[in-house]
Protein backbone atom coordinates (compact mmCIF):
# COMPACT_ATOMS: atom_id res chain seq x y z
CA UNK A 1 0.00 0.00 0.00
CA UNK A 2 2.89 2.39 0.80
CA UNK A 3 4.36 1.78 -2.67
CA UNK A 4 1.01 2.62 -4.21
CA UNK A 5 0.77 5.81 -2.19
CA UNK A 6 4.31 6.71 -3.18
CA UNK A 7 3.39 6.13 -6.86
CA UNK A 8 0.38 8.41 -6.37
CA UNK A 9 2.66 11.08 -4.91
CA UNK A 10 4.88 10.99 -8.03
CA UNK A 11 1.79 11.83 -10.11
CA UNK A 12 1.33 15.04 -8.12
CA UNK A 13 4.66 16.45 -9.33
CA UNK A 14 4.24 19.61 -11.44
CA UNK A 15 0.48 19.71 -10.87
CA UNK A 16 -1.75 22.63 -9.91
CA UNK A 17 -3.26 20.46 -7.13
CA UNK A 18 -0.02 20.73 -5.18
CA UNK A 19 0.19 24.51 -5.60
CA UNK A 20 -3.48 24.87 -4.75
CA UNK A 21 -2.91 23.05 -1.46
CA UNK A 22 -0.30 25.60 -0.40
CA UNK A 23 -1.81 28.75 -1.95
CA UNK A 24 -5.37 27.83 -0.91
CA UNK A 25 -4.19 27.31 2.67
CA UNK A 26 -2.43 30.68 2.61
CA UNK A 27 -5.35 32.65 1.13
CA UNK A 28 -7.57 33.31 4.16
CA UNK A 29 -4.84 33.65 6.81
CA UNK A 30 -3.20 36.24 4.55
CA UNK A 31 -6.53 38.04 4.11
CA UNK A 32 -7.11 38.09 7.88
CA UNK A 33 -3.53 39.17 8.52
CA UNK A 34 -3.73 42.16 6.17
CA UNK A 35 -7.20 43.17 7.48
CA UNK A 36 -6.03 43.06 11.11
CA UNK A 37 -2.80 44.86 10.20
CA UNK A 38 -4.35 47.78 8.34
CA UNK A 39 -7.61 48.04 10.37
CA UNK A 40 -6.02 47.19 13.72
CA UNK A 41 -7.98 49.83 15.64
CA UNK A 42 -11.20 47.98 14.81
CA UNK A 43 -9.86 44.80 16.38
CA UNK A 44 -8.47 46.06 19.69
CA UNK A 45 -10.14 43.77 22.29
CA UNK A 46 -12.02 45.00 25.34
CA UNK A 47 -10.20 44.80 28.62
CA UNK A 48 -9.59 41.29 29.93
CA UNK A 49 -10.90 39.74 26.70
CA UNK A 50 -8.76 37.11 24.99
CA UNK A 51 -8.39 38.27 21.33
CA UNK A 52 -7.54 34.76 20.16
CA UNK A 53 -11.17 33.53 20.44
CA UNK A 54 -12.47 36.29 18.19
CA UNK A 55 -9.58 35.86 15.75
CA UNK A 56 -9.92 32.07 15.68
CA UNK A 57 -13.69 32.28 15.17
CA UNK A 58 -13.05 34.35 12.04
CA UNK A 59 -10.47 31.73 11.00
CA UNK A 60 -12.98 28.91 11.63
CA UNK A 61 -15.79 30.65 9.75
CA UNK A 62 -13.41 31.32 6.87
CA UNK A 63 -12.56 27.64 6.98
CA UNK A 64 -16.28 26.73 6.71
CA UNK A 65 -16.85 29.11 3.79
CA UNK A 66 -13.67 29.02 1.71
CA UNK A 67 -11.89 25.74 2.40
CA UNK A 68 -14.76 23.60 1.06
CA UNK A 69 -14.41 24.97 -2.48
CA UNK A 70 -10.66 24.34 -2.35
CA UNK A 71 -11.26 20.79 -1.15
CA UNK A 72 -13.67 20.08 -4.03
CA UNK A 73 -11.12 21.49 -6.47
CA UNK A 74 -8.25 19.49 -4.98
CA UNK A 75 -10.25 16.22 -5.20
CA UNK A 76 -11.28 17.04 -8.79
CA UNK A 77 -7.72 17.89 -9.84
CA UNK A 78 -6.26 14.73 -8.32
CA UNK A 79 -8.79 12.46 -10.07
CA UNK A 80 -8.47 14.49 -13.26
CA UNK A 81 -4.81 13.41 -13.51
CA UNK A 82 -6.09 9.91 -14.41
CA UNK A 83 -8.89 11.17 -16.68
CA UNK A 84 -6.49 13.39 -18.68
CA UNK A 85 -3.93 10.59 -19.07
CA UNK A 86 -6.74 8.15 -20.00
CA UNK A 87 -4.95 5.85 -17.59
CA UNK A 88 -7.75 3.94 -15.85
CA UNK A 89 -7.40 1.14 -18.43
CA UNK A 90 -3.67 0.99 -17.69
CA UNK A 91 -4.27 0.89 -13.92
CA UNK A 92 -6.96 -1.78 -14.24
CA UNK A 93 -4.64 -4.11 -16.18
CA UNK A 94 -2.03 -4.08 -13.46
CA UNK A 95 -1.75 -6.96 -11.00
CA UNK A 96 -3.50 -4.94 -8.32
CA UNK A 97 -6.84 -5.47 -6.64
CA UNK A 98 -9.22 -2.67 -7.60
CA UNK A 99 -9.91 -2.07 -3.92
CA UNK A 100 -6.25 -1.20 -3.40
CA UNK A 101 -6.41 1.36 -6.20
CA UNK A 102 -9.58 2.84 -4.70
CA UNK A 103 -8.10 3.19 -1.24
CA UNK A 104 -4.62 4.31 -2.32
CA UNK A 105 -6.03 7.23 -4.28
CA UNK A 106 -8.47 7.96 -1.47
CA UNK A 107 -5.51 7.96 0.95
CA UNK A 108 -3.74 10.49 -1.27
CA UNK A 109 -6.82 12.72 -1.40
CA UNK A 110 -7.24 12.59 2.39
CA UNK A 111 -3.51 13.20 2.95
CA UNK A 112 -3.55 16.28 0.72
CA UNK A 113 -6.67 17.61 2.48
CA UNK A 114 -5.06 17.08 5.90
CA UNK A 115 -1.94 18.86 4.62
CA UNK A 116 -4.20 21.71 3.44
CA UNK A 117 -5.76 22.14 6.90
CA UNK A 118 -2.43 21.72 8.64
CA UNK A 119 -0.96 24.53 6.53
CA UNK A 120 -4.14 26.61 6.96
CA UNK A 121 -3.95 26.53 10.75
CA UNK A 122 -0.16 26.89 10.85
CA UNK A 123 -0.45 30.00 8.65
CA UNK A 124 -3.39 31.35 10.71
CA UNK A 125 -1.63 30.85 14.06
CA UNK A 126 1.66 32.24 12.74
CA UNK A 127 -0.25 35.22 11.43
CA UNK A 128 -1.81 35.80 14.93
CA UNK A 129 1.61 35.66 16.59
CA UNK A 130 3.06 38.04 13.99
CA UNK A 131 0.16 40.47 14.52
CA UNK A 132 0.83 40.37 18.27
CA UNK A 133 4.47 41.18 17.60
CA UNK A 134 3.86 43.96 15.04
CA UNK A 135 0.86 45.55 16.81
CA UNK A 136 1.00 44.88 20.61
CA UNK A 137 -2.37 46.70 21.08
CA UNK A 138 -4.09 43.66 19.55
CA UNK A 139 -2.90 41.73 22.65
CA UNK A 140 -2.21 38.44 20.93
CA UNK A 141 1.09 38.21 22.79
CA UNK A 142 -0.59 38.63 26.16
CA UNK A 143 -2.77 35.52 26.00
CA UNK A 144 -1.86 31.92 25.35
CA UNK A 145 -3.22 30.15 22.31
CA UNK A 146 -6.46 28.27 23.24
CA UNK A 147 -5.22 24.90 22.02
CA UNK A 148 -8.25 22.93 23.14
CA UNK A 149 -10.62 25.30 21.32
CA UNK A 150 -8.62 24.79 18.11
CA UNK A 151 -8.38 21.04 18.59
CA UNK A 152 -12.15 20.73 19.18
CA UNK A 153 -12.98 22.72 16.05
CA UNK A 154 -10.51 20.85 13.86
CA UNK A 155 -11.85 17.50 15.07
CA UNK A 156 -15.51 18.48 14.61
CA UNK A 157 -14.87 20.12 11.27
CA UNK A 158 -12.90 17.15 9.89
CA UNK A 159 -15.67 14.79 11.03
CA UNK A 160 -18.24 17.03 9.35
CA UNK A 161 -16.47 17.01 5.96
CA UNK A 162 -15.62 13.28 5.68
CA UNK A 163 -18.95 12.24 4.05
CA UNK A 164 -18.64 15.15 1.59
CA UNK A 165 -15.07 14.12 0.68
CA UNK A 166 -16.15 10.52 0.04
CA UNK A 167 -19.14 11.54 -2.10
CA UNK A 168 -17.08 14.06 -4.08
CA UNK A 169 -14.34 11.43 -4.60
CA UNK A 170 -16.99 9.10 -6.03
CA UNK A 171 -18.38 11.81 -8.32
CA UNK A 172 -14.89 12.82 -9.45
CA UNK A 173 -13.84 9.36 -10.61
CA UNK A 174 -17.19 8.83 -12.30
CA UNK A 175 -17.43 12.21 -14.08
CA UNK A 176 -14.53 12.81 -16.44
CA UNK A 177 -15.25 16.49 -16.95
CA UNK A 178 -13.71 18.50 -14.10
CA UNK A 179 -16.10 21.42 -14.59
CA UNK A 180 -19.14 19.15 -14.23
CA UNK A 181 -17.87 17.29 -11.15
CA UNK A 182 -16.88 20.58 -9.55
CA UNK A 183 -20.25 22.09 -10.52
CA UNK A 184 -22.12 19.24 -8.81
CA UNK A 185 -20.07 19.74 -5.66
CA UNK A 186 -20.54 23.53 -5.65
CA UNK A 187 -24.29 23.07 -6.17
CA UNK A 188 -24.30 20.80 -3.09
CA UNK A 189 -22.45 23.45 -1.09
CA UNK A 190 -24.85 26.16 -2.27
CA UNK A 191 -27.85 24.08 -1.21
CA UNK A 192 -26.20 23.42 2.14
CA UNK A 193 -25.64 27.11 2.68
CA UNK A 194 -29.06 28.31 1.49
CA UNK A 195 -30.97 25.71 3.47
CA UNK A 196 -28.64 25.89 6.47
CA UNK A 197 -31.44 26.29 9.00
CA UNK A 198 -33.73 23.58 7.63
CA UNK A 199 -34.18 20.77 10.17
CA UNK A 200 -33.31 17.98 7.75
CA UNK A 201 -30.38 19.69 6.06
CA UNK A 202 -27.86 17.53 7.91
CA UNK A 203 -28.88 14.67 5.62
CA UNK A 204 -27.12 16.48 2.77
CA UNK A 205 -23.39 15.65 3.11
CA UNK A 206 -22.41 19.00 1.61
CA UNK A 207 -24.40 20.89 4.27
CA UNK A 208 -22.83 19.48 7.44
CA UNK A 209 -19.72 21.72 7.43
CA UNK A 210 -21.95 24.82 7.50
CA UNK A 211 -23.33 23.63 10.83
CA UNK A 212 -19.88 24.55 12.17
CA UNK A 213 -20.35 28.25 11.44
CA UNK A 214 -19.95 30.49 14.55
CA UNK A 215 -18.51 27.47 16.30
CA UNK A 216 -19.23 26.98 19.99
CA UNK A 217 -17.62 24.03 21.72
CA UNK A 218 -20.59 23.20 23.92
CA UNK A 219 -23.20 23.52 21.19
CA UNK A 220 -21.47 20.96 18.99
CA UNK A 221 -20.51 18.59 21.74
CA UNK A 222 -24.11 18.45 22.93
CA UNK A 223 -25.08 16.93 19.61
CA UNK A 224 -23.94 13.42 20.45
CA UNK A 225 -25.60 12.04 17.31
CA UNK A 226 -23.37 14.18 15.13
CA UNK A 227 -20.38 11.82 15.30
CA UNK A 228 -22.47 8.68 14.90
CA UNK A 229 -24.44 10.12 12.04
CA UNK A 230 -21.30 11.18 10.15
CA UNK A 231 -19.61 7.84 10.85
CA UNK A 232 -22.58 5.90 9.44
CA UNK A 233 -22.87 8.24 6.45
CA UNK A 234 -19.13 7.97 5.73
CA UNK A 235 -19.17 4.17 5.89
CA UNK A 236 -22.25 4.00 3.70
CA UNK A 237 -20.80 6.23 0.95
CA UNK A 238 -17.43 4.53 1.24
CA UNK A 239 -19.06 1.13 0.71
CA UNK A 240 -21.21 2.33 -2.21
CA UNK A 241 -18.28 4.09 -3.92
CA UNK A 242 -16.06 1.05 -3.36
CA UNK A 243 -18.69 -1.26 -4.82
CA UNK A 244 -19.10 0.97 -7.87
CA UNK A 245 -15.33 1.37 -8.41
CA UNK A 246 -14.52 -2.32 -8.05
CA UNK A 247 -17.54 -3.86 -9.80
CA UNK A 248 -18.93 -1.44 -12.35
CA UNK A 249 -16.45 1.33 -13.13
CA UNK A 250 -14.62 0.60 -16.40
CA UNK A 251 -12.64 3.82 -16.75
Amino acid at each position, binding site marked *: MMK*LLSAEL*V*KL*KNTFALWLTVLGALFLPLLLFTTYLFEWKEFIPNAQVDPWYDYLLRTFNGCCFFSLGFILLIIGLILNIEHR*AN*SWKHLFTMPLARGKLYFSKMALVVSVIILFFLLYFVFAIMSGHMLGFIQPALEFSRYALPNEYIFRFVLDFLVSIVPMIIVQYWISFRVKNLVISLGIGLFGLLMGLLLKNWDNIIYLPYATPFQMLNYKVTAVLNRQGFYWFNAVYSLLFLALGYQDFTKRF*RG
Partner: protein
Amino acid sequence: MQNNEELIIETSHLSFGFSKDKNVLNDIDLKIPKAAIYGFLGPNGAGKTTTIRILLNLLKPGNGSVSIFGKTVSGNPVDLFSRIGALIETPSLYEHLTGLDNLLITAKMRNIQKSRLLEVLNIVQLKSSGHLYVKDYSLGMKQRLGLALALLSSPDLLILDEPTNGLDPNGIIETRELLLHLSKDHGVTILISSHLLSEIEKLVSHIGILNQGKMLFQGTIEQLHEISQEQSIIEIDTNQNSLAIQILLDNNHIVKHGKEFLEVKYLDKYQLSDVIALLAKAGVAIYRIQLIESSLEQTFLSFVNN
Protein backbone atom coordinates in the same frame (compact mmCIF):
# COMPACT_ATOMS: atom_id res chain seq x y z
CA MET B 1 -5.02 -24.36 -35.89
CA GLN B 2 -3.68 -27.56 -34.35
CA ASN B 3 -5.48 -28.83 -31.30
CA ASN B 4 -2.40 -30.09 -29.48
CA GLU B 5 -0.84 -26.65 -29.19
CA GLU B 6 -0.85 -25.00 -25.76
CA LEU B 7 -3.22 -22.06 -26.02
CA ILE B 8 -2.28 -18.90 -24.15
CA ILE B 9 -5.47 -17.07 -25.09
CA GLU B 10 -8.70 -18.88 -25.83
CA THR B 11 -12.15 -17.41 -26.14
CA SER B 12 -15.30 -19.38 -26.60
CA HIS B 13 -18.42 -18.01 -28.33
CA LEU B 14 -17.56 -14.49 -27.23
CA SER B 15 -20.30 -11.95 -27.89
CA PHE B 16 -20.68 -8.37 -26.79
CA GLY B 17 -22.98 -5.44 -27.48
CA PHE B 18 -23.03 -1.90 -26.11
CA SER B 19 -26.81 -2.04 -26.50
CA LYS B 20 -29.21 -4.98 -26.36
CA ASP B 21 -30.27 -4.53 -29.98
CA LYS B 22 -26.91 -4.75 -31.68
CA ASN B 23 -23.89 -6.92 -31.01
CA VAL B 24 -20.48 -5.55 -31.93
CA LEU B 25 -18.93 -9.01 -31.44
CA ASN B 26 -20.53 -12.28 -32.47
CA ASP B 27 -19.36 -15.74 -31.50
CA ILE B 28 -15.63 -15.02 -31.46
CA ASP B 29 -13.41 -18.06 -30.88
CA LEU B 30 -9.87 -16.78 -30.58
CA LYS B 31 -7.14 -19.37 -30.27
CA ILE B 32 -3.64 -18.04 -29.71
CA PRO B 33 -0.90 -20.66 -29.17
CA LYS B 34 2.15 -20.20 -26.98
CA ALA B 35 4.98 -18.10 -28.45
CA ALA B 36 2.81 -17.12 -31.41
CA ILE B 37 2.76 -13.63 -32.82
CA TYR B 38 -0.92 -13.33 -33.58
CA GLY B 39 -1.95 -10.57 -35.97
CA PHE B 40 -5.47 -9.46 -35.17
CA LEU B 41 -6.65 -7.79 -38.35
CA GLY B 42 -9.71 -5.88 -39.33
CA PRO B 43 -10.82 -2.51 -40.60
CA ASN B 44 -11.54 0.33 -38.18
CA GLY B 45 -14.66 -0.46 -36.18
CA ALA B 46 -14.39 -4.23 -36.75
CA GLY B 47 -14.35 -4.93 -33.01
CA LYS B 48 -10.61 -5.46 -32.39
CA THR B 49 -10.29 -3.02 -29.49
CA THR B 50 -13.55 -4.26 -27.94
CA THR B 51 -12.20 -7.83 -28.07
CA ILE B 52 -8.92 -6.73 -26.51
CA ARG B 53 -10.79 -4.84 -23.78
CA ILE B 54 -12.76 -8.00 -23.00
CA LEU B 55 -9.55 -10.07 -22.89
CA LEU B 56 -8.15 -7.62 -20.36
CA ASN B 57 -11.33 -7.68 -18.28
CA LEU B 58 -12.04 -4.01 -19.03
CA LEU B 59 -15.40 -5.02 -20.51
CA LYS B 60 -17.61 -7.91 -19.50
CA PRO B 61 -18.71 -10.16 -22.39
CA GLY B 62 -22.43 -10.53 -23.02
CA ASN B 63 -21.89 -14.20 -23.77
CA GLY B 64 -19.02 -16.66 -23.88
CA SER B 65 -15.85 -16.97 -21.88
CA VAL B 66 -12.20 -15.89 -21.95
CA SER B 67 -9.32 -18.02 -20.78
CA ILE B 68 -5.73 -16.77 -20.50
CA PHE B 69 -2.86 -19.05 -19.45
CA GLY B 70 -5.53 -21.71 -18.96
CA LYS B 71 -7.42 -19.66 -16.35
CA THR B 72 -10.84 -18.13 -16.85
CA VAL B 73 -10.77 -14.34 -16.80
CA SER B 74 -13.40 -13.00 -14.44
CA GLY B 75 -13.65 -10.97 -11.25
CA ASN B 76 -10.31 -9.34 -10.54
CA PRO B 77 -7.65 -11.65 -12.06
CA VAL B 78 -4.64 -10.10 -10.29
CA ASP B 79 -2.35 -13.13 -10.81
CA LEU B 80 -2.98 -13.17 -14.56
CA PHE B 81 -2.16 -9.50 -14.98
CA SER B 82 1.30 -9.96 -13.46
CA ARG B 83 2.18 -11.95 -16.60
CA ILE B 84 0.58 -9.58 -19.12
CA GLY B 85 1.86 -6.35 -20.63
CA ALA B 86 -0.68 -4.31 -22.56
CA LEU B 87 -0.90 -1.25 -24.74
CA ILE B 88 -4.51 -0.39 -25.53
CA GLU B 89 -5.29 2.27 -28.14
CA THR B 90 -3.38 5.43 -27.21
CA PRO B 91 -0.80 4.91 -24.47
CA SER B 92 -1.83 6.00 -20.96
CA LEU B 93 0.76 8.64 -20.18
CA TYR B 94 0.98 11.42 -17.61
CA GLU B 95 2.05 14.27 -19.87
CA HIS B 96 3.07 16.58 -17.00
CA LEU B 97 5.75 14.08 -15.96
CA THR B 98 8.94 12.87 -17.61
CA GLY B 99 9.18 9.56 -19.43
CA LEU B 100 11.19 8.14 -16.53
CA ASP B 101 8.59 9.27 -13.98
CA ASN B 102 5.88 7.56 -16.03
CA LEU B 103 7.85 4.33 -15.91
CA LEU B 104 8.63 4.84 -12.23
CA ILE B 105 4.92 5.01 -11.35
CA THR B 106 4.21 1.68 -13.05
CA ALA B 107 7.39 0.17 -11.58
CA LYS B 108 6.29 1.14 -8.06
CA MET B 109 2.82 -0.25 -8.62
CA ARG B 110 4.15 -3.51 -10.07
CA ASN B 111 7.01 -3.80 -7.56
CA ILE B 112 9.71 -3.70 -10.23
CA GLN B 113 13.36 -2.76 -9.66
CA LYS B 114 14.37 0.75 -10.75
CA SER B 115 17.26 -0.65 -12.83
CA ARG B 116 14.66 -2.05 -15.23
CA LEU B 117 13.53 1.49 -16.16
CA LEU B 118 16.68 2.29 -18.13
CA GLU B 119 16.66 -1.19 -19.67
CA VAL B 120 13.22 -0.72 -21.21
CA LEU B 121 13.99 2.85 -22.25
CA ASN B 122 17.03 1.45 -24.02
CA ILE B 123 14.96 -1.28 -25.68
CA VAL B 124 12.54 1.29 -27.15
CA GLN B 125 15.42 3.68 -27.91
CA LEU B 126 14.26 6.48 -25.64
CA LYS B 127 17.20 6.40 -23.24
CA SER B 128 18.30 9.91 -24.12
CA SER B 129 14.74 11.29 -23.83
CA GLY B 130 13.80 9.72 -20.50
CA HIS B 131 14.30 12.98 -18.60
CA LEU B 132 12.08 15.01 -21.00
CA TYR B 133 8.46 15.81 -20.22
CA VAL B 134 6.05 13.56 -22.12
CA LYS B 135 4.10 16.62 -23.33
CA ASP B 136 7.19 17.42 -25.45
CA TYR B 137 7.33 13.92 -26.98
CA SER B 138 6.32 13.26 -30.59
CA LEU B 139 3.47 10.83 -31.28
CA GLY B 140 5.98 8.10 -32.15
CA MET B 141 7.95 8.68 -28.92
CA LYS B 142 4.72 8.42 -26.90
CA GLN B 143 3.89 5.17 -28.65
CA ARG B 144 7.35 3.82 -27.84
CA LEU B 145 7.02 4.89 -24.20
CA GLY B 146 3.66 3.06 -24.11
CA LEU B 147 5.48 -0.01 -25.41
CA ALA B 148 8.14 0.44 -22.72
CA LEU B 149 5.39 0.48 -20.06
CA ALA B 150 4.02 -2.77 -21.47
CA LEU B 151 7.49 -4.36 -21.45
CA LEU B 152 8.42 -3.17 -17.96
CA SER B 153 7.32 -6.34 -16.18
CA SER B 154 9.01 -8.70 -18.71
CA PRO B 155 5.59 -10.20 -19.51
CA ASP B 156 4.87 -13.67 -20.90
CA LEU B 157 2.00 -12.23 -22.95
CA LEU B 158 2.00 -8.90 -24.75
CA ILE B 159 -1.29 -7.45 -25.95
CA LEU B 160 -0.71 -4.52 -28.28
CA ASP B 161 -3.52 -2.56 -29.86
CA GLU B 162 -2.20 -0.89 -33.02
CA PRO B 163 1.23 -0.22 -31.49
CA THR B 164 2.72 1.17 -34.68
CA ASN B 165 0.27 4.08 -34.85
CA GLY B 166 2.25 7.25 -35.35
CA LEU B 167 5.56 5.48 -35.90
CA ASP B 168 7.68 6.35 -38.92
CA PRO B 169 8.88 3.50 -41.22
CA ASN B 170 12.08 3.12 -39.20
CA GLY B 171 10.08 2.95 -35.98
CA ILE B 172 7.82 0.30 -37.49
CA ILE B 173 10.81 -1.81 -38.54
CA GLU B 174 12.45 -1.43 -35.11
CA THR B 175 9.23 -2.40 -33.33
CA ARG B 176 8.88 -5.41 -35.62
CA GLU B 177 12.44 -6.53 -34.86
CA LEU B 178 11.91 -6.04 -31.14
CA LEU B 179 8.71 -8.12 -31.13
CA LEU B 180 10.36 -10.86 -33.21
CA HIS B 181 13.24 -10.91 -30.73
CA LEU B 182 10.85 -11.15 -27.76
CA SER B 183 8.94 -13.98 -29.39
CA LYS B 184 11.90 -16.01 -30.64
CA ASP B 185 14.38 -15.51 -27.82
CA HIS B 186 12.08 -15.15 -24.82
CA GLY B 187 9.04 -17.17 -25.89
CA VAL B 188 6.73 -14.20 -25.35
CA THR B 189 3.28 -14.67 -26.88
CA ILE B 190 2.15 -11.53 -28.68
CA LEU B 191 -1.28 -10.40 -29.78
CA ILE B 192 -0.96 -7.41 -32.06
CA SER B 193 -3.90 -5.69 -33.70
CA SER B 194 -3.74 -3.68 -36.87
CA HIS B 195 -5.94 -2.59 -39.74
CA LEU B 196 -3.09 -3.02 -42.24
CA LEU B 197 -1.91 -6.49 -43.16
CA SER B 198 1.13 -5.10 -44.97
CA GLU B 199 2.33 -3.64 -41.67
CA ILE B 200 2.42 -6.94 -39.81
CA GLU B 201 2.63 -9.71 -42.43
CA LYS B 202 6.41 -9.96 -42.02
CA LEU B 203 6.00 -10.24 -38.26
CA VAL B 204 3.15 -12.57 -37.47
CA SER B 205 2.97 -16.36 -37.30
CA HIS B 206 -0.82 -16.46 -36.98
CA ILE B 207 -3.61 -14.32 -38.30
CA GLY B 208 -7.17 -13.63 -37.25
CA ILE B 209 -9.36 -11.52 -39.53
CA LEU B 210 -12.30 -9.75 -37.96
CA ASN B 211 -14.97 -7.69 -39.66
CA GLN B 212 -18.24 -6.32 -38.31
CA GLY B 213 -17.78 -8.34 -35.15
CA LYS B 214 -17.35 -11.68 -36.92
CA MET B 215 -14.25 -13.82 -37.26
CA LEU B 216 -13.72 -14.38 -40.98
CA PHE B 217 -10.44 -16.27 -40.86
CA GLN B 218 -8.14 -17.70 -38.24
CA GLY B 219 -5.03 -19.70 -38.90
CA THR B 220 -1.33 -19.60 -39.59
CA ILE B 221 0.21 -17.15 -42.02
CA GLU B 222 1.04 -20.17 -44.23
CA GLN B 223 -2.62 -21.09 -44.38
CA LEU B 224 -3.43 -17.55 -45.49
CA HIS B 225 -0.68 -17.81 -48.14
CA GLU B 226 -2.31 -21.00 -49.41
CA ILE B 227 -5.68 -19.27 -49.70
CA SER B 228 -3.95 -16.40 -51.41
CA GLN B 229 -2.30 -18.75 -53.87
CA GLU B 230 -5.65 -20.40 -54.60
CA GLN B 231 -6.90 -17.04 -55.81
CA SER B 232 -4.01 -16.64 -58.29
CA ILE B 233 -4.72 -17.06 -62.02
CA ILE B 234 -2.88 -17.31 -65.33
CA GLU B 235 -4.22 -14.87 -67.93
CA ILE B 236 -3.96 -16.11 -71.50
CA ASP B 237 -4.79 -14.51 -74.86
CA THR B 238 -4.45 -16.45 -78.12
CA ASN B 239 -5.54 -16.28 -81.77
CA GLN B 240 -8.11 -19.04 -81.07
CA ASN B 241 -9.44 -18.64 -77.52
CA SER B 242 -12.32 -21.12 -78.03
CA LEU B 243 -9.92 -23.85 -79.13
CA ALA B 244 -7.48 -22.98 -76.36
CA ILE B 245 -10.18 -23.29 -73.68
CA GLN B 246 -11.21 -26.70 -75.04
CA ILE B 247 -7.61 -27.98 -75.04
CA LEU B 248 -7.02 -26.78 -71.50
CA LEU B 249 -10.31 -28.25 -70.23
CA ASP B 250 -9.48 -31.59 -71.89
CA ASN B 251 -6.19 -31.57 -69.98
CA ASN B 252 -7.87 -31.02 -66.60
CA HIS B 253 -7.06 -27.33 -66.17
CA ILE B 254 -9.70 -25.17 -64.56
CA VAL B 255 -10.32 -22.44 -67.08
CA LYS B 256 -12.97 -19.83 -67.86
CA HIS B 257 -13.52 -16.74 -69.99
CA GLY B 258 -12.53 -13.64 -68.07
CA LYS B 259 -13.44 -10.05 -68.89
CA GLU B 260 -10.64 -9.76 -71.48
CA PHE B 261 -8.65 -12.97 -71.43
CA LEU B 262 -8.90 -16.62 -70.57
CA GLU B 263 -8.32 -17.24 -66.87
CA VAL B 264 -6.68 -20.50 -65.78
CA LYS B 265 -6.65 -21.31 -62.08
CA TYR B 266 -3.02 -21.27 -60.96
CA LEU B 267 -1.83 -24.41 -59.22
CA ASP B 268 1.97 -24.38 -59.24
CA LYS B 269 4.99 -23.04 -61.12
CA TYR B 270 5.20 -26.09 -63.44
CA GLN B 271 1.74 -25.37 -64.77
CA LEU B 272 2.90 -22.41 -66.90
CA SER B 273 5.23 -24.47 -69.09
CA ASP B 274 2.60 -27.20 -69.36
CA VAL B 275 -0.03 -24.74 -70.61
CA ILE B 276 2.39 -23.21 -73.13
CA ALA B 277 3.44 -26.63 -74.41
CA LEU B 278 -0.17 -27.81 -74.86
CA LEU B 279 -1.23 -24.71 -76.80
CA ALA B 280 1.91 -24.61 -78.93
CA LYS B 281 1.51 -28.30 -79.83
CA ALA B 282 -2.05 -27.59 -81.06
CA GLY B 283 -0.77 -24.71 -83.22
CA VAL B 284 -2.42 -22.00 -81.15
CA ALA B 285 -0.54 -18.68 -81.26
CA ILE B 286 -0.09 -17.23 -77.75
CA TYR B 287 -0.25 -13.45 -77.64
CA ARG B 288 -0.15 -13.13 -73.92
CA ILE B 289 0.41 -15.37 -70.88
CA GLN B 290 0.80 -13.85 -67.45
CA LEU B 291 0.67 -15.11 -63.88
CA ILE B 292 -1.54 -12.85 -61.75
CA GLU B 293 -0.73 -13.63 -58.13
CA SER B 294 -3.10 -12.57 -55.37
CA SER B 295 -1.21 -10.74 -52.60
CA LEU B 296 -1.98 -11.34 -48.94
CA GLU B 297 -3.37 -7.82 -48.84
CA GLN B 298 -5.81 -8.65 -51.66
CA THR B 299 -6.78 -11.86 -49.89
CA PHE B 300 -7.38 -9.91 -46.68
CA LEU B 301 -9.43 -7.34 -48.55
CA SER B 302 -11.43 -10.06 -50.29
CA PHE B 303 -12.28 -11.49 -46.85
CA VAL B 304 -13.32 -8.09 -45.56
CA ASN B 305 -15.21 -6.97 -48.66
CA ASN B 306 -17.10 -10.25 -49.08
